[in-house]
């Protein structure tokens, strides 16, 4: 009987530990999107509301929100979050935000390298360089110095559907 109880205890412990291991990912990131809706009130005034993406057509604005969660007991640092910019969208300039201090870099080569906007140059067919337009960015990278233990950080940016 005692043997049966100890086996059950051990099994329960494994089960609990297993669930714990599955639920508590040390550091995680999730992405979700919201759609900009302009609401016209009865008095004629307009206000902007962000709703779950549903009816999206060209020229609509979509906001992406990345949530980074540090589930560990320690501060993590040098956090870099990279998002591609879908080919059928383009980044809206200066739409990047976060609840933490951040810097942002951009890529014009599909995320191979990132640089500040004033250092991204594109060569045309004749070899002449021009400063890349925001519509030519195809990835962006947020950098956050630290995320304290057991805390969440949101970053967000907006794109327009081509």
């Amino acid at each position, binding site marked *: 009987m005692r043997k049966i109880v100890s086996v059950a205890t051990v099994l329960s412990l494994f089960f609990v530990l297993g669930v714990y291991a599955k639920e508590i*990912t*040390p*550091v*995680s*990131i*999730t*992405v*979700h*999107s919201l759609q900009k809706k302009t609401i016209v009130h009865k008095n004629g005034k307009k206000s902007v509301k962000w709703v*779950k*993406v*549903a*009816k*999206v*057509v*060209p*020229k609509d604005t*979509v906001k*992406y929100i*990345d949530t*980074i969660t540090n589930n*560990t007991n*320690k501060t*993590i*640092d*040098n*956090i*870099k*979050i*990279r*998002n*591609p*910019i*879908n*080919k*059928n*969208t383009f980044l809206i300039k200066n739409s990047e935000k976060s609840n933490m201090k951040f810097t942002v870099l951009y*890529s014009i*080569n*599909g*995320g*191979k390298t990132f640089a500040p906007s004033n250092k991204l140059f594109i060569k045309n067919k004749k070899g002449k360089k021009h400063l890349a337009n925001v519509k030519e960015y*195809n*990835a962006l990278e947020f950098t956050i110095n630290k*995320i304290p233990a057991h805390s969440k950080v949101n970053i967000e940016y907006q794109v327009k*559907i*081509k």
Partner: protein
Amino acid sequence: MKKAIFISILTASVSLFASGTQAGTDITNSATLSYSAGGVAQPDVTSNTDSFKVDKKIDMVLVTNDSNQVDVTPGQQDRITNYEFKNEGNENQYFKFTVDNLANGKEADYNSNKDNDDVKNLEIKCQYTDADGNKKTAGWANEFTIQVKQDTNATCQVRADIKTDAEGGKDTDVMNVELTATAVTDSSGNTAEKESSSDTQDKVDVVLADGVSGDTLGSSSSGKGDTPKDGKEVARSGYKIVTPVLSVTKTSCVVSDPVNDTNNPKRIPGAIIRYMFDIKNTGTGNVSDLNITDTIDSNLLTDNTKSSAKKEENVDSCNCSAEPSSSISDDTTVNGQDVTIEHINVANGGKHTCVSIETEIK
């Protein structure tokens, strides 16, 4: 991992449609996170993939290229008004074209002339690009349904027959017409597209966006009959009855006589007498190809009448002593005392056409 995530971007092509990303296109996004813990770089973490479909945006614009009602006269047939259409949605789309007379009191898109009569036998013709990119022509017909390629224009015409005078053709008649393009679900043209009531992230919804913004045809984006977001665009043009009102004044003056020549000449035998026909048009319609016939008094010779015939069109007044500038001997026939002058034009709005011929007193 980083390479794998971004490789799709490197092979991406740029959207070719000015009217936007095609309906049904998936927009996906997956983020990658890198970080350090205790100064040690940790393995990258990849997020979930956020995905939604671009919905079907139904958008089009239809404008008239006319800037005024087309001038017509009672009984004319196949008189044309002109329109331009563009499928500004993000998919090839079926559109049903219909045409009808506007009700009394309704205005065309370009002015405030109110409709007060109808035209007959209205028909439409459109030249457009079909879903396969082929140039096609539909019509003439009172209505038809065509599939117009995304981002392409169509040139349309409406033709109509004008009622005869007995049916009301009068100077103030205005007959406005309305061409309508309605987005429909298929080639039968029986079912109009409707905005999807439910919002779904993973399926293609229908969004009616006509008349909202960004129309790219003409100077005005929507006509007087347009309602935004109804899946329908209308353009209004029309016809206007114009009627010339003519008056003719015939005067004479002596050009020369055998004694005084041109110095204060008198109407004596051998004197040259000029007849001036002063034709004035105070109506709203121009006159073309007017003929004048006249019988010259038998005491006058018409030997040089043909060669002396002259005219001047579109002037403010006629004066017998001032000979018109253009010879019209080729348009003048003299048969005995009967004179016929052809191909005379008289502009509307009170303008004059001066026609002169010369005779000689026997």
